[in-house]
């Protein structure tokens, strides 16, 4: 069985006695843009650092481009890393920061100049070559960090929370920037994030992680529409998540029958607020709260099934707080969960 371009086999990572990642298996293809998505402490950053070589695995194997790099030291791995804090060298100019790795390879003179120039040009910072990092804005620093890694022509580029520190507008710009770089160079890119919006927007494939293991791997559409576990469902915005036992929804008030036949081999069902049908259905609820969100109106209902979050078009007549409402959770509109808990 041939390895994928980047292959993680039964990888176990620990800090001292604390196990952060356990028996992780993952295959990433050449040129893919992959997101590691999960809450803090799930092991996504730890895995990233292990790929970079900053952490030695307790057990397991890492393969890159056909070679076993598990024991290869970080400075020989052809892996690039853009740190969350950018980690620019404060005592060097932008030019020297970008040139750093190239100089270590023995590249100098006109060749060095050409490559650094190209790197700076590709991130639009040619005019800033003589400045020091302290003189740059956050967004500019990040682009220097990106150029610094990219001029090394890495086999894999890792990015630690690349969009978290940016304001909304910069975030959009940087997203476009990363996509452009990936398209133009075809570099295999992995970024770590806790923000599902970023992951859904950027990635070809998303690896959702929890507690040191993988919950689900899939395309953004798959993750968004077909979460396999209650955790993933909750993470990507299914606000109404229920375990299923013997065809009944498990609610805080005990098991309650579904409005239709339950799907086979299902551990739970999850509905997005949009999927809740208001105004008709076998269930009854009282409107506890409502908020206007531009295009839609959100409702929080107190029901025998617990709190239900619903959302309908803003153009439809609103429901008053305190009013009683019939509603349905149609089985057809639910995501089928294979795992619960």
């Amino acid at each position, binding site marked *: 069985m041939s390895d994928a371009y980047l292959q993680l086999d039964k990888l176990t990572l620990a800090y*001292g006695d604390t196990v952060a990642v356990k028996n992780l298996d993952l295959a990433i293809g050449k040129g893919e843009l992959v997101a590691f998505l999960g809450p803090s402490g799930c092991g996504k950053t730890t895995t990233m650092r292990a790929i*970079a*070589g*900053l952490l030695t695995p307790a057990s397991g194997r890492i393969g890159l481009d056909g070679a076993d790099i598990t024991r290869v*030291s*970080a*400075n*020989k*791995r052809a*892996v*690039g*890393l853009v*740190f969350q*804090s950018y*980690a*620019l*060298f*404060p*005592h060097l100019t932008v030019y020297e920061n970008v040139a*750093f*790795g190239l100089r*270590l*390879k023995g590249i100098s003179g006109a060749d060095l100049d050409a490559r650094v120039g190209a790197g700076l040009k590709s991130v639009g910072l040619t005019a800033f070559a003589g400045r020091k990092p302290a003189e740059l804005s956050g967004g500019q620093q990040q682009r220097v960090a990106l150029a*610094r*890694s990219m001029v*090394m022509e890495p086999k894999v580029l890792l990015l630690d929370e690349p969009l978290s520190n940016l304001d909304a507008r910069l975030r959009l710009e940087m997203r476009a920037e990363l996509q452009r770089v990936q398209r133009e160079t075809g570099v295999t890119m992995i970024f770590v994030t806790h923000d599902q919006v970023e992951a859904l927007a950027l990635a070809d494939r998303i690896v959702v992680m929890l507690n040191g293991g993988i919950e689900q791997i899939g395309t953004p559409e798959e993750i968004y529409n077909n979460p396999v576990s209650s955790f993933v469902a909750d993470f990507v915005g299914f606000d109404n998540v229920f375990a299923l036992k013997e065809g009944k929804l498990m609610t805080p008030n005990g098991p309650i029958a579904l409005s239709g036949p339950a799907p086979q081999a299902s551990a739970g069902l999850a509905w997005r607020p949009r999927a809740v049908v208001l105004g008709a259905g076998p269930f009854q609820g009282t409107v506890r709260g409502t908020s206007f969100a531009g295009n839609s109106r959100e409702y929080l209902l107190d029901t025998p099934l617990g709190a239900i979050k619903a959302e309908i078009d803003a153009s439809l007549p609103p429901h008053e707080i305190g009013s009683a409402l019939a509603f349905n959770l149609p089985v057809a509109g639910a995501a089928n969960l294979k795992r619960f808990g």
Partner: protein
Amino acid sequence: MSIRLFSPIVLFLLLVFLIGPFLIIIAASLSAGDTLAFPPQGLSLRWVTKVFAVESFRDSFAMSMFLAVFGTLAALLLGIPAAYALSRYRLPAAEAVRTIVSLPIIVPGIIVGLALLRYLVVPFGFNITVALFFAHAALVLPYAVRVVSASLDNLRSDIEEAAVLLGSSRFGAFFRVVMPNIRGGVLAAFILGFVTSFNQVPVSLFLSGPGVRTLPIDMLGYMETTYDPSIAALSALLAFLSIGIVFLAERFLGFSRYV
């Protein structure tokens, strides 16, 4: 109000008490007369020039300089790696290392000098100069570790990781990326160590011998027998040296930031 009168009087008296004696020394050293007196009998630079001519002073000055410069360098050579280990790693027994390295500040210097004389010099025929060198290095070590540690703690460690990922060795990363950014702290530690070692007396008390003497010890010996303004002149010169070094350090380095 009495407060408003109180302040200037207190401050004036304070400065007279603290700095006055120093000014008196300067005046006494400019005396043209043969004995130590204030007010000086006439003004002359003869005593100031004389101290440069006294061979014993030149020798002991050279010794003090040697100890201050090389003792501090030795302390830095030992202290910088230790500070790095304490700052960047979760060192087993970190507290023990920190304590052992800080002890020389707590233990009075005279005890160290005596102990080294008794257990290193006398029984093993250890060279006194070497023992003095060790003693001064040990004396400065705590300052070296403390100041450099502070600088390292203020420097993020991810730039070292970045350097390694760009192809540098760990060792190379330290020199290319860490040292340039803690340069100020290292320099401040050197200056602090230099001044501490140079002005140190008790440590060197017992570790003296024929031809092996630090300048302050030499001065103390001279004071016991001769009563001329040489010591005043020497004291004044040394004081200006110390003040000058610290002043320049503050001006060009912002010395007080590091200590």
